[in-house]
């Protein structure tokens, strides 16, 4: 009995040593690949940045209006953005290659799928970027309109516009990469519907006075409004 237990333990220990012996070199290789990948990505990022600076990409972007869009979305310059994208794409590639060295069962297939998803992933990133720019633009337009018209809580109004556009962009991006497609659509429908219903109820019940004032402002007291502000021109 004792001998059997000892044998089993010894065998388990041997197996563990064998596994570690097999896994450790692969893990070290993976770490080495990731570190080398980081260095390669960093070098490529710097090379890309230098080339783009030499080609005056920022100036071209400025003339085409792309730099303005990035600036308005609080993003770095076009050169910086492309350089960072190169860094992350290269490093992500090395990380995935490194993980594949571990030869974990099922992982290879997942990595192939991730590589297959890359084009959709890039499109999804583009959708998110456009969503970010649109959300910034329209929420700022809403904020300016609300402030200049003297509406109460302009920040809430602006935030709601930003939120709805963001939800829309995220849903579209998720649908693009096929990740939880049904869930994303359902979540968007529920969130959007809930927001609209909430706003309608809030406006109808909580904001009856505001609704009355708004309607009066547009249809009832136009002359008074004009008298309240001196004629600008």
């Amino acid at each position, binding site marked *: 009995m004792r001998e059997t237990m000892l044998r089993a333990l010894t065998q388990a220990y041997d197996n563990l040593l064998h596994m570690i012996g097999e896994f450790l070199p692969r893990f070290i290789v993976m770490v080495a690949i990731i570190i080398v990948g980081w260095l390669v990505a960093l070098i490529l990022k710097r090379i890309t940045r230098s080339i783009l600076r030499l080609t005056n990409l920022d100036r071209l972007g400025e003339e085409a209006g792309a730099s303005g869009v990035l600036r308005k979305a609080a993003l770095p310059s076009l050169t910086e953005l492309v350089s960072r994208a190169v860094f992350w794409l290269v490093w992500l590639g090395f990380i995935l290659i490194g993980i594949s060295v571990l030869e974990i069962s099922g992982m290879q297939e997942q990595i192939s799928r991730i590589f297959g998803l890359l084009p959709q992933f890039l499109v999804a990133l583009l959708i998110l970027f456009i969503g970010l720019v649109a959300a910034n633009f329209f929420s700022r337009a809403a904020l300016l309109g609300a402030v200049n018209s*003297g509406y109460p809580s302009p920040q809430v109004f602006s935030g709601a516009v930003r939120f709805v556009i963001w939800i829309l962009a995220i849903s579209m991006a998720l649908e693009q990469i096929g990740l939880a497609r049904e869930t994303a659509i359902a979540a968007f429908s529920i969130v959007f519907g809930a927001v609209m219903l909430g706003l309608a109820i809030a406006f109808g019940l909580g904001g009856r006075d505001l609704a009355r004032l708004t309607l009066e402002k547009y249809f009832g007291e136009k002359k008074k409004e004009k008298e309240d502000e001196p004629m*600008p021109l």
Partner: protein
Amino acid sequence: MSVGEVDLLVGIATHNHAKTIGNLVRTIEECLVQSFPRERIVIVNADGGSRDDTQGILLRAAPPESKNARGLTSLRTMHRISTRYANAPSPGLALRTILASAELLRTKACAIVSPENSQPACGWVTSLLRPAFQDHFDFVAPLYTRNKFDGLLARNLLYPMSRAVFGQRIRELHSGEFGFSGRLASHCLSQTVWHEEVVRAWPEYWMAISAVSGGFRCCQSYLGVKGRTETSPDLVAAIRQTVGTLFWCLEKQSDFWMDRADSEIVPTFGPDHELAPTTSRVNRKKLLEMFRDGISGLEQILNSVLHAGTFAEIKRLAALNDGFDYPDDLWARTLYEFAASYHHGVLNHDHLIQALVPLYRGRIYSFLMQHQESSPEEMETGTEHLCMEMERQKPYLMELWKSNSEVKP
């Protein structure tokens, strides 16, 4: 209709102005018969798709008595031409149509008259045409008598800034009524900016600044009392139109104004400025509230547009309990920093202009508090002080303009 060549042209851009156009045309023609009995004259109507028979009413309006006050009969035929340039109104297209007519007819002097004013004084058209026709001025800006607190955007922003930057003391560069020579019409017609949104929406201001920056002879001519019209734009729309056009012109004409210092007095026919004693009712409390709400609501945007020191000073004013004075030097700095931010593309241009509205309200609140009991002369002194301050700070604008970075340090 064959018109041949004419001496004088009066342009009217219309869109659903059936109520006023008949009286307007009769008044203009009676005035022209009295003032220019020997000249060949045409009235050109550019219509933007009216659905109320504006064009028909204009063409059918009864002609004036052909005898003038001295009993002399006009020797000339007065023509009326009405054309539809599009099915929707476009001020740029309307002006371009009128300019093209002026060039085609080899007109010596032209006047643009607003169709809003159904009964302009007879002298208005003469005052706009005569300096261009007889004294050979290329651009004739109008001058009006206004209610004391009307035209504050012009008094606090448009006039001081355009005077400081472009170097000509013309009060109403932004007016929709003005006179011009055939030479200026041809010059403007040959420009390649007619597709620009700003020029399509507010071409008069661009044309006036083109006259100033193009070295054309400019003058001012007093017209009379400027009344309120039903379609006067509200404050936000007025600022978007006029300040947007002014900043756009700064951008396009920077080569011209960068080299200029000080400002020149331009010849003026009639009184230089007139203020009617009546005052309109103004809700100062609302102005103050909207200024304060704007400062807090747009803090992030204003932070990206204004220099830190300038914005801190404005915030300090907004926090004061018992009203405040928005001083001329701070207002000049505010405007110049906005103009430079427009140039550097810190924000979408339209958003940037809209962000100026709360600050303008603060300035107007301060102006109204300061001039509640002021006489016209005192108000005029205040305006002159602001103009001088803007001229003094013009190097600051140039410095910001030339810097590669945005306004913020």
